[in-house]
């Protein structure tokens, strides 16, 4: 059974999606538990396959037993394992958040919802593991279709945001498809490994360059890299908190991973770095995005809109890591995927919990919360410190590797950009922390004394906050075993 593991991860999620949907129709409470069970089962399978990959090397699964260029394959190397672990792990923690505050929907109607969440995770896992350019497109569309529905749960404004996202995501998907078409008509294959072999012969062909440009543009649209970020703030502000957490924590990172994968395993370094300035363009627009999005985040008063702009800035860090195109930069970028999903996941859950529990939307509402909700604000502080990049957290280590990568490539501008952006991060996160620890000056407000969040909401937040510290402590283990072996191939 062990050789079927790569296929079983998405398939188990899909099967649990069906079971959660069908049984949820009969007894609505079941669907939530089944969804958590499915996500945890997928996480277990990911852990098993990670152990197997670490012991025996890259796994490859040929669907229908057709050899790769002819059939579809799933490739599972250590980097894929890392991404699958992040997706299923973060997903199962986020699903533990209760339905009503998390998804803003009645529990009676939640069966469809949990089916879609599991399908969303299955789509992301498929995207990560696909070893075939077109198969990736199919999973990309599954994950975006589910997101449109999930974002729109938030009500009228969320529907408009979701529609905007639909237009942008469809343009992104279409660009990707067109790019795949150009690559296919230039080399005659859509298997990633096969394209990697065949591509050097036609590197100077305009259709390969144009196709690569279209593919990268499409993926940048999906990952909300700076000039294409316009859909993200609205959808993250109006979507239900858990959906916003999913979107910020895993959904926009997976296209970034795909770009890394394309850089490493499809278009080689020669093409992306030397022949065409694609990585340079990514690096520069990311650098611009980091600064501009951070400044925009400072200007926001709504807590969740601020987090959304912060997501744009953080995704640009990942883009910067890819754009540096050296092993340390890639390590920093990929490790930042994990750090960011832990931090942004917990921050969005806190935002959702505070809104549901206290009705707080704006940063002014945080005043005096530090005393009354020590655990929540503690988790918020840890996540905020991670965002700024203070040492024991995971956020520090990813930025550290990004800095090393920038120094390695001799681009001091990026070093300056990262230092300035850390300062900007500090400005907008310390503002909140300061507000939270400022005691209320009038006694009238203390009558409707908000107490600590209920345990059901607090548990996933605290798990994620602990995860930030644990990932920071284990950074060397994770990077040496999972990320470095692949990134060194550059």
């Amino acid at each position: 059974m062990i050789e079927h593991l790569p296929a079983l991860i998405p398939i188990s999620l899909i099967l649990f999606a069906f079971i959660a949907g069908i049984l949820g129709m009969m007894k609505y409470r079941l669907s939530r538990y089944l969804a958590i069970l499915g996500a945890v089962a997928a996480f277990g399978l990911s852990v098993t396959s990670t152990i197997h990959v670490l012991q025996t090397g890259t796994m490859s699964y040929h669907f229908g037993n057709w050899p790769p260029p002819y059939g579809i394959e799933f490739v599972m190397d250590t980097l894929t394992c890392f991404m699958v672990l992040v997706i299923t792990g973060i997903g199962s923690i986020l699903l533990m958040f209760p339905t009503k505050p998390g998804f803003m929907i009645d529990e009676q109607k939640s069966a469809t919802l949990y089916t879609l969440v599991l399908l969303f995770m299955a789509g992301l896992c498929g995207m990560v593991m696909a070893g075939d350019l077109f198969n990736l497109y199919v999973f990309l569309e599954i994950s975006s279709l589910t997101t449109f529905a999930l974002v729109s749960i938030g009500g009228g404004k969320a529907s408009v945001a979701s529609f905007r996202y639909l237009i942008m995501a469809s343009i992104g998907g279409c660009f990707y498809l067109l790019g795949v078409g150009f690559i296919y008509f230039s080399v005659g294959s859509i298997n990633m490994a096969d394209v990697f072999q065949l591509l050097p012969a036609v590197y100077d062909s305009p259709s390969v360059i144009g196709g690569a440009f279209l593919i990268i543009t499409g993926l940048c649209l999906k990952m909300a890299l700076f000039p294409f970020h316009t859909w993200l703030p609205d959808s993250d502000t109006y979507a239900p908190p858990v959906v916003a957490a999913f979107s910020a924590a895993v959904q926009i990172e997976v296209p970034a991973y795909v770009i890394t994968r394309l850089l490493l395993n499809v278009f080689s370094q020669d093409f992306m770095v030397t022949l065409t300035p694609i990585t340079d363009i990514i690096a520069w627009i990311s650098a611009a995005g980091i600064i501009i999005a951070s400044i925009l985040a400072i200007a926001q008063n709504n807590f969740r809109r601020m987090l959304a702009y912060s997501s744009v800035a953080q995704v640009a860090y990942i883009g910067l890591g890819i754009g540096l195109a050296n092993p340390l930069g890639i390590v920093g970028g990929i490790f930042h995927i994990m750090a960011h999903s832990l931090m942004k996941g917990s921050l969005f859950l806190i935002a959702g919990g505070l809104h549901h529990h206290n009705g707080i939307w704006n940063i002014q509402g945080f005043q005096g919360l530090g005393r009354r909700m020590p655990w929540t604000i503690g988790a918020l502080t840890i996540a905020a410190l991670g965002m700024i990049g203070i040492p024991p957290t995971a956020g520090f280590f990813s930025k550290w590797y990004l800095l090393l990568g920038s120094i390695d490539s001799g681009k001091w501008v990026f070093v300056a950009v990262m230092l300035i952006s850390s300062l900007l991060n500090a400005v907008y996160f310390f503002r909140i922390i300061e507000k939270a620890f400022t005691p209320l000056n009038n006694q009238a407000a203390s009558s409707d004394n908000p107490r600590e969040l209920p345990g059901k909401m607090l548990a996933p937040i605290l798990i994620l906050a602990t995860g930030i510290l644990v990932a920071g402590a284990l950074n060397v283990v994770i990077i040496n075993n999972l990320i470095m072996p692949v990134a060194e191939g550059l």
Partner: protein
Amino acid sequence: MGDIAFHYSYIMIIILLVIGLYGMLGKRNLIKKIIGLNIFQTAIFLFFIEGGLKDGGTVPVIDPALGTEAAIYFNPLPHVMILTAIVVSVATTGVAMALLLTIYRNYTSLEEDIILERMGK
């Protein structure tokens, strides 16, 4: 690497793509955006089908009288990809229509400017 004159069919497809993109980005009515999206996607299908053609070929259904020589039949892979892409396009349109219904129920308009005004921005 042929002359641009031989690529006139691609030029037609590019015109369609541009019309679709303009519909999505330039138009203010949400239904027109969806129409633009559909034009864009259809142009992509045409692009793939165009690339799968072979002069003197026939549809990729094997005729025992003709044998299994690769040059006789069109390239089947673009057709397969396009079947998938068509389904994706239909699915996206369906979801978009559902979203438009909710938007219309909330704001009783499908003009982007009026919706933004009613959203209070």
